[in-house]
């Protein structure tokens, strides 16, 4: 059996490398060959072309993430027309069925952001920044939008590049420029969460709430140490593992679950952080 996964995040993105690890493990467990493909940058045009190339190879199943239904819809429908079973994951819960996908595994980015925002507001945050390391990447933009809605208080977006030093300086600048900011939400744990913690430490402030999407061992350590509030985990390992296993079962026995599988959100707080550090360091969480 041959299953192709087409995702919109890059293989060197810590988040997506966990998805890829999940898919690979499912491949091992089911005996299917799994090809994991991503465009080199967030690019919907390139992604639709990757789906087309997957269709041409007539695999036994395709797993896709759908951050832009308009852009990817035709390609996904072509896969369905060609008789290839499709499962969507990560992004696209709302449109998966309409496009002919069998089911969706994942969480809505917007909902996850909203949950985080609500929690941070509960914890006493009054003014927040959302640190976005890839402005224009729709999934990341949705996280910030959800955060703004759930938080209920003023939120501004801090755009940064993919560079920890710059993130640290920018977070520090934002905190210094407006002393009322007391909440920082990062959209990636290693890239943003860790430098944000470092920035707050350097400022010597202990009244700033820091939360981050996704997990990294360093950030989880900060959560465990009480320097950061929590990490938002959507257990993306499942987003790689489950669709591949489902498609493998489907190809062998025709089995398929009857509904979507929510893989998150799951907030990791101080009490549970220590347990997942090791798994995170291995690329499983």
């Amino acid at each position: 059996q041959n299953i192709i996964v087409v995702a919109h995040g890059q293989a060197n993105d810590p988040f997506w490398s966990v998805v890829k690890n999940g898919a690979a493990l499912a491949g091992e467990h089911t005996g299917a060959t799994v090809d994991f493909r991503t465009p080199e940058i967030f690019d919907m045009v390139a992604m639709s072309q990757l789906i087309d190339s997957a269709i041409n190879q007539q695999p036994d199943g395709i797993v896709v993430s759908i951050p832009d239904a308009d852009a990817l819809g035709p390609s996904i429908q072509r896969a369905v027309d060609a008789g290839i079973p499709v499962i969507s994951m990560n992004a696209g819960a709302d449109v998966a069925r309409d496009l002919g996908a069998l089911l969706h595994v994942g969480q809505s980015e917007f909902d996850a952001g909203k949950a985080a925002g609500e929690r941070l507001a509960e914890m006493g945050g009054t003014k927040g920044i959302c640190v976005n390391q890839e402005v224009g990447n729709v999934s990341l933009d949705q996280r910030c939008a959800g955060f703004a809605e759930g938080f209920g208080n003023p939120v501004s977006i801090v755009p940064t590049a993919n560079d920890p030093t710059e993130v640290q300086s920018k977070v520090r600048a934002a905190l210094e420029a407006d002393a009322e900011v007391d909440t920082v939400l990062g959209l990636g744990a290693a890239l943003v969460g860790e430098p944000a913690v470092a920035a707050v430490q350097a400022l010597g402030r202990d009244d700033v709430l820091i939360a981050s999407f996704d997990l990294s061992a360093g950030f989880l350590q900060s959560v465990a140490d009480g320097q950061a509030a929590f990490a938002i985990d959507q257990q993306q390992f499942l987003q790689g593992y489950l669709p591949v296993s489902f498609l493998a079962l489907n190809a062998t026995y025709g089995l398929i679950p009857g509904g979507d599988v929510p893989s998150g959100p799951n907030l990791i707080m101080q009490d549970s952080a220590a347990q997942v550090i090791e798994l995170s360091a291995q690329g499983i969480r």
Partner: protein
Amino acid sequence: MAQNASLSADERIKTETLTTRLMKRPELGAIGGVILVTIFFLITASPTMFTLAGIMNFLTPAAQLGILGIAAAMLMIGGEFDLSIGSMVAFAGMIFGVLVVNMGLPLIFAIPLTMAFAAATGAVNGAIVLRTGLPSFIVTLAFLFILRGASLVGLKLFTGGSTQLRGVREAVADDWLTPIFSGDAFGGAFRWMAQQGWIAQLNSGAPSVPGIPVEILWFVAIAALATFVLLRTPAGNWIFATGGDKQAASNSGVPVRRVKISLFMLTALAAALVAVITVIDTGSTDARRGFMKEFEAIIAAVIGGCLLTGGYGSAIGAFFGAIIFGMVTIGLSYTGFDQDWFQVFLGAMLLLAVVFNNAIRKRVTGER
């Protein structure tokens, strides 16, 4: 040419074979790389890569990149860079989306308006470069940021907060101009061929290849036109001269400023064309469109033999350069290699293709 006969009388030149003469042309330099890459994938990739559907599949991104690459090549031959074309794809896409979706304009107005916007921005780029005498690298870099930022702001403004504008496909579905900028051409012919069993059919009975994606036709047409302009018109001569030595060209009476401004407008127009094609094709646009395309366009031009210092290169070279780049990026997904190795392979293949080109050309032409 006419004088070849009289020349062979000169004892100071050796006769050369047809192959040598062909390989000397910069236009054909990049063919070696295409052949090498093709052979590589014939060996390593799934055979579906070279089915009709597979070929269309890798030619589509190559065509989109190639349209930009050919324009970038012409500008590079003219001695300048335009780093803003990637952002221009996003910006023009935003303008186009807004015109079509928010303002409901038909394509016959929306496309020329988008093009006019782009050309004006290109002219501004060019005017700043000429007026200040700054390197175009830095001026267009500023526009890379400005246009990218403006796309983000514009999209948020017109969609009420999202960075994604949707609904283009519905808006243009019935427009008579749509088939020229989107979808597949010669659909009838391909359906007929499928019925004849010449090409594969899907379960639904539709042909596996619904036609030739229009961008491929645009790509070929633009490559042909650009080659004609560069090699066979006074304007082409001016472009080479301007890029070769601005001062000498101007001293010889070439209208250097006019040439440069026109070239900047040209690259912007190429970006707008790609924007229109991809926005209609995908039905949406977002703030990340065209990200890094400026570099890929320059890469395609350089693979095709353009010199970064200007004054040398060809449109056909950029044509093949784009195909090489497109084949390598899409082709690797037809092979069994792990995605983690993707970039290593991409880099190695590019290097190999270019080195091979070069080695062949040197060998054939006897340069040392």
